[in-house]
């Protein structure tokens, strides 16, 4: 059975439209990440699903039941808030029991569920402490525990890792991945961090400008972005989008010329392309060569040595900044002039309205 379905959800605050006809269908036990910059509408969408905001139009259906007019507590969803929102005057145990008591779950059942959750989350020793006496990571676990004990049909996680320090964030990410295997429910996570979305989600919903830009598996989003926004938002460092001009020709695939005059043979089909294009190249498809030996020459502005690889930020003669990748032992230094070789087999083309045209995989 399908888990959550959104049909044409719309929301405006006064004259400001924040969600414009959002539709989505989730499968049972699926983990979906809403990824987008701030103001993209992703948090509003989560709050509409939770019942904390009312949509102006559209339907929210969870496992066949329409829930968009129900109060939050009657929707079979549980939410982990960004700032945890634990009740400060209640112990950890009471925090977890509160919702169950309100739902009239029998006392021994409440005890059993709390014990289970505490064991899974390793917070058994803290059950009688107050949130104020705990660290951020422990509070995060309590917040997750409070959601787990409800046995909801859908978990909603609002930026769950954003308040943790870097080391704890990586660990909690792994724990969240393990946790989702234990729970028999679908999960939606709102995040602006693509690494979280890529590592945790089965599918990513990329949102921008009030709309869903693309829905797809993480690698699909990365390798076949639906448009220029998705291409530039997903991937770190960002993809280079270089203005390009389509060259006339007979071949099945498009040949383009960059502003510098360099010509690039892509594996994108020629049909349907015209006018002003942009060539999208990921850093890993842009290699450093000796000056004159690649497609174009560029001046190095910044070098980031990451150990296993080196990121080279360089500027083309026409002023466009590009990001290339070199091996870890790279000797490139700031101020050098280097050649860039474009591995055009994976290059994308974006037309004037941003729509992507992808390379055909080599036969």
């Amino acid at each position, binding site marked *: 059975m399908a888990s959550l379905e959104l049909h044409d959800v719309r929301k405006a605050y006064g004259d400001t439209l924040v969600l414009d006809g959002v539709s989505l269908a989730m499968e049972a036990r699926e983990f979906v990440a809403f990824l987008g910059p701030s103001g993209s509408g992703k948090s509003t969408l989560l709050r509409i699903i939770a019942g904390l905001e009312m949509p102006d139009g559209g339907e929210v259906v969870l496992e066949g039941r329409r829930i968009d007019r129900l109060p939050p*507590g009657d929707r079979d*969803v549980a939410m982990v808030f960004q700032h945890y*929102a634990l*009740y400060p005057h*209640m112990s950890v145990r009471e925090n977890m029991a509160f919702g169950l008591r309100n739902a009239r779950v029998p006392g021994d059942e409440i005890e059993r569920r709390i014990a289970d959750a505490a064991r899974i989350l390793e917070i058994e020793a803290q059950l009688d402490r107050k949130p104020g006496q705990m660290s951020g990571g422990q509070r995060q676990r309590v917040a997750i525990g*409070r959601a787990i004990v409800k046995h909801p049909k859908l978990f909603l996680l609002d930026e769950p890792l954003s308040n943790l320090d870097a080391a704890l964030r990586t660990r909690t990410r792994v724990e969240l991945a393990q946790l989702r295997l234990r729970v028999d429910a679908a999960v939606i996570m709102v995040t602006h961090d693509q690494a979280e979305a890529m590592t945790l989600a089965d599918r990513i919903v990329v949102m921008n400008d009030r709309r869903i830009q693309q829905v797809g598996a993480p690698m699909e989003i990365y390798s076949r972005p639906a448009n220029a926004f998705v291409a530039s938002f997903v991937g770190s460092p960002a993809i280079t989008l270089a203005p390009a001009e389509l060259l006339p020709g007979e071949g099945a695939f498009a040949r383009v010329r960059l502003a510098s005059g360099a010509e690039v043979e892509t594996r994108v089909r020629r049909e349907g392309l015209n006018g002003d294009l942009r060539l999208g190249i990921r850093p890993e498809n842009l290699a450093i060569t000796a000056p004159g030996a690649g497609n174009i020459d560029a001046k190095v502005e910044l070098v980031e040595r990451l150990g296993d690889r080196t990121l080279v930020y360089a500027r083309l003669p026409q002023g466009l900044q590009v990001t290339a990748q070199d091996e870890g032992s790279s000797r490139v230094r700031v101020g050098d002039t280097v050649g860039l070789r474009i591995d055009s087999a994976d290059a994308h083309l974006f037309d004037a309205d941003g729509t992507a045209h992808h390379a055909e995989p080599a036969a």
Partner: protein
Amino acid sequence: MRQGGLARRLEGFAFVGPFLLLYVFLLIYPLFLGIGISFHRADLFGARQWVGFDNYARLLADPVFHQSLINTFKLTLLIVPALTIVALALALALNRATRTAAVFRGLFFSSSVLSVTIVTLIWRFILTPDAGLVAEAMQALGKEPVPFLSDPNLTIPALAITTIWWSIGLPMMLFLAGLQQIPGDIYEAAALDRAGRWTTFRRVTLPSLRRTVILVVMLQTAAQLQIFGQAQLLTAGGPSGSSRPVVLFIYEVAFGRWELGYAIAAAEMLFLLVLAVTLIQYWAVTRRETEQ
């Protein structure tokens, strides 16, 4: 000690000095002077005659003082809980960002800026049996006007209502400030936890306001045990002492009968009473907190 340590310390004293001086001369010195005078038969012109604990012994046997103590307790018990509950209810109702709420917040607070004289005048117009607002309303309904200011059973409630109306602003503002401190997301969490309005109030709002409630009750108790102006102006303590609180008793003894020693003895008793009640409340609160 670091170099310049003494100079720095003197500098510190220079800053607190003026306040400390005023504090000592206006509060500490009179307190001890008062204790001294309370052991004398004294008048306002400086005549002193040592009488030991005589004033205190007289007070303990004085039925007028007893009555004023009882009146003070009655007033405090009527005013403090009602004031706390009404102020909390108003704060809950007005804790929203609408223009109407802002107007009402201002309206309810406005009574606090009036002097006790004005407040008493207003309530005299409302409560007086001849042509008062309440009396007119009752007569319009065909009922006898109620003699709020002359029936011994009604003077204390009348004083309590006047005081509540006058003092509602500050506790309401304290509660509003307390409510603003509660993060909004725990209310959202409570909504997802299926908590109804009453459960949310009892289990989320009230515990979050605990410290404010304690503060309001302690401040108001200390204030109402010293109630004076309203009683003097509205009923002058009458009829037959039925609405005379302790401070009015002190005032009458000191400036009516000119028995300064006796009045100060009563004042010292009131001081001890306020101190004791406040300490008991503080102790009860902190004890519960350490238990938790």
